[in-house]
């Protein structure tokens, strides 16, 4: 490599690390916060602040006790200083929690925040035909389209409301897919979850619109512990969107969400995520710790499809999974994971084949730039009874520059001989030749990278609903500004 070229490459890499997080601002909304630290007392306070019934408090206390006995996992290929769990604030709610007749009644400060993010609620309401349940910090402050949905018998509300209004459903399904004891973070979440979304689609109902929640971490030092529970009853269909951006912070913010999906016989759930939490600055300081447990269970002929575009967080630990319990059920996982600067990601999926003729597809695309570290970790388990089941996995990595790293850890367990598994993996660099070719057509290097990356991610982006795909593309561009290989 010539000296001149080396120099220009270094300059570009330099530029990557100086690209600032574009959504870094904080909202000045008065918050109702409890002292930091975790104890039985704190769990009781959270439960009582939320006016919860006794069974819910029991559930939380039980989880807290379980958590105390567990240890934080170490097996992921990431390095970070373990959070001090006594230094985290476990509950924060905007003080003003108005009952909104319309979105116009929203706190002006909050509205400004959403405007900065380019998310106009009015526009969404009018144009996108999307019902939005916003989680700002821990409490839902606005729920819309409830009426349209309730006409069909669809329940879409905060999990807090669901605990009050639909206790029989929550009691039956909460923890049924991700048990409290599942892992360290699911136990923590079960003890202290502050809010999240709940959704129930009745038998045979096709949800008439995309359901969407925008999450946002907003209070300095507040751990965000959402809990999402989505139940699609027999023969129903739903597409759920989850998108996140968070303001810039210096200290690490802990985030340990749990998402549970239940797809009854013949049901179809599509769950899409765009994640853009603060990744830390160019020296690796700050950023969100994202330790998420997402899992769905499929009964007979049911289908669950996870799509995720992960660009944010300092450390990501996330494996959206499918338990293919019913015969002929289908699990899918489509993922784009971008790491830049000092970001670390260990993400992938688990496909557990239990029923006969079950099928799963995994398409994972990793993009690494800066000094980041991206890992795909996936498990395909085909049990003895899962005759004639099939899996196809494709794991690709795209590297930019020579300071990042990418690893693939596929685990495959097959216990019968009528099943078929295919696994493909590639690693490539954005080539100088590709860039020069684009440049020669008048396309600048930044734009060329965006184009090449979009092409690389196409199979995943195509899975996203239209408006989300556009947002995801924008996010990829912002995340990779200045990177070149």
């Amino acid at each position, binding site marked *: 490599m010539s000296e001149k*070229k080396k120099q220009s490459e270094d300059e570009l890499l330099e530029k990557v690390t100086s690209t600032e997080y574009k959504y870094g601002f904080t909202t000045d909304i008065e918050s109702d916060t409890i002292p930091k630290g975790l104890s039985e007392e704190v769990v009781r306070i959270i439960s009582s602040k939320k006016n919860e019934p006794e069974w819910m408090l029991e559930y939380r206390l039980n989880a807290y006790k379980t958590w105390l006995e567990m240890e934080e996992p170490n097996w992921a290929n990431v390095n970070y200083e373990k959070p001090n769990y006594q230094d985290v604030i476990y509950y924060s709610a905007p003080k003003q929690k108005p009952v909104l007749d319309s979105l116009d009644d929203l706190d002006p400060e909050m509205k400004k925040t959403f405007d900065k993010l380019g998310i106009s609620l009015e526009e969404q309401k009018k144009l996108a035909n999307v019902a939005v349940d916003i989680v700002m910090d821990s409490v839902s402050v606005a729920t819309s389209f409830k009426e349209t949905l309730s006409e069909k018998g669809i329940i879409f509300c905060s999990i807090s409301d669901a605990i009050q209004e639909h206790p029989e459903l929550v009691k039956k399904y909460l923890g049924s897919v991700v048990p409290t004891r599942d892992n360290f973070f699911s136990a923590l979440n079960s003890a202290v979850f502050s809010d999240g979304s709940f959704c129930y689609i009745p038998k045979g109902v096709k949800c008439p619109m995309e359901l969407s929640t925008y999450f946002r971490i907003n209070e300095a030092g507040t751990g965000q512990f959402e809990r999402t529970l989505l139940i699609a009853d027999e023969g129903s269909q739903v597409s759920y969107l989850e998108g996140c951006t968070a303001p810039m912070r210096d200290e690490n913010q802990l985030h340990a969400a749990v998402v549970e999906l239940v797809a009854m016989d013949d049901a179809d759930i599509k769950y899409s995520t765009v994640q853009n939490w603060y990744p830390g600055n160019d020296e690796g300081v700050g950023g969100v710790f994202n330790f998420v447990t997402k899992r769905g269970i499929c009964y007979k002929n049911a289908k669950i499809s996870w799509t995720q575009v992960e660009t944010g967080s300092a450390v990501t630990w996330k494996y959206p999974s499918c338990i293919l319990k019913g015969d002929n059920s289908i699990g899918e996982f489509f993922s784009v994971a971008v790491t830049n600067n000092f970001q670390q990601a260990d993400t992938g999926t688990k496909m557990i084949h239990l029923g006969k003729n079950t099928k799963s597809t995994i398409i994972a695309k990793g993009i690494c730039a800066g000094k980041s570290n991206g890992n795909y970790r996936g498990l395909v388990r085909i049990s003895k009874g899962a005759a004639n089941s099939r899996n196809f996995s494709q794991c690709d990595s795209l590297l930019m520059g020579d300071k990042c790293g990418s690893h693939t850890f596929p685990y495959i367990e097959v216990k019968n001989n009528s099943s078929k598994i295919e696994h493909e993996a590639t690693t490539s660099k954005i080539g100088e030749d590709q860039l020069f070719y684009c440049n020669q057509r008048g396309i600048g290097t930044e734009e060329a990278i965006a184009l090449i990356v979009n092409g690389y991610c196409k199979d995943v982006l195509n899975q996203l609903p239209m408006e989300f795909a556009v947002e995801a593309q924008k996010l990829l561009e912002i995340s990779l500004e200045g990177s070149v290989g």
Partner: protein
Amino acid sequence: MLKVKNLKAGIEDSQILKGINLEVNAGEVHAIMGPNGSGKSTLASVIAGKEEYEVVEGNIDFEGDDLLELSPEERAQKGVFLSFQYPVEIPGISVSNFIKTSISEQRKATGMKPMTTKDLLKMMRDKMELLNIKNGYLSRNMNEGFSGGEKKRNEIFQMAMLEPKLSILDETDSGLDIDALRIVANGVNKLKNKNNATIVITHYQRLLDYIVPDFVHVLHNGRIIKSGGKELALELEEKGYDWITKEADKKWD
């Protein structure tokens, strides 16, 4: 339009171009011929601005601009087009999307309004007809799984869409069968007018049966050792390169 003066360039320590002088005016077709390794493709790459080549001396003037001061994309935006000898694959990006991006970036750079989708599609259809390109081509991914002939035709299609002032065709004939060659050459001829110019880089005279040059230059060991009219190409075809390269080697050694 293009004035190359005493151009010396190379990669790292090896000097490939050793003082090229070349002047190309609007409406002209120039052929650059020469044996393998003479520096033909290097000249094309240096004009287009490929970074790995270092220019040590000389200059390139393109319509009053010093090309060497411009980035590759700026040169393209000014109207310099290179048809690649080995076109590059861009997986997942369709031909139409790529060309749309290319055109809109070029228009943006020159302060023109973006083209409407309708106009763009119409233009694409017209140019496809011109180059005998079948339907379904636009939605294929850029050069992915293209045959050698398809790749070259795709280059000429982009040239037709971008309407450059100066087109440099780098070994466009290599890897083409006679039918594909004829189609590509026909396309180039149809796109030719009094305001644009073409530099055809080729090893063989064959292409020049279809694209008739006004001037022929022989490149050898980094220098243009002979220039002439189209008859020079025929002479080369007949006698090979030896008779002039030997003479030149004597002169420069």
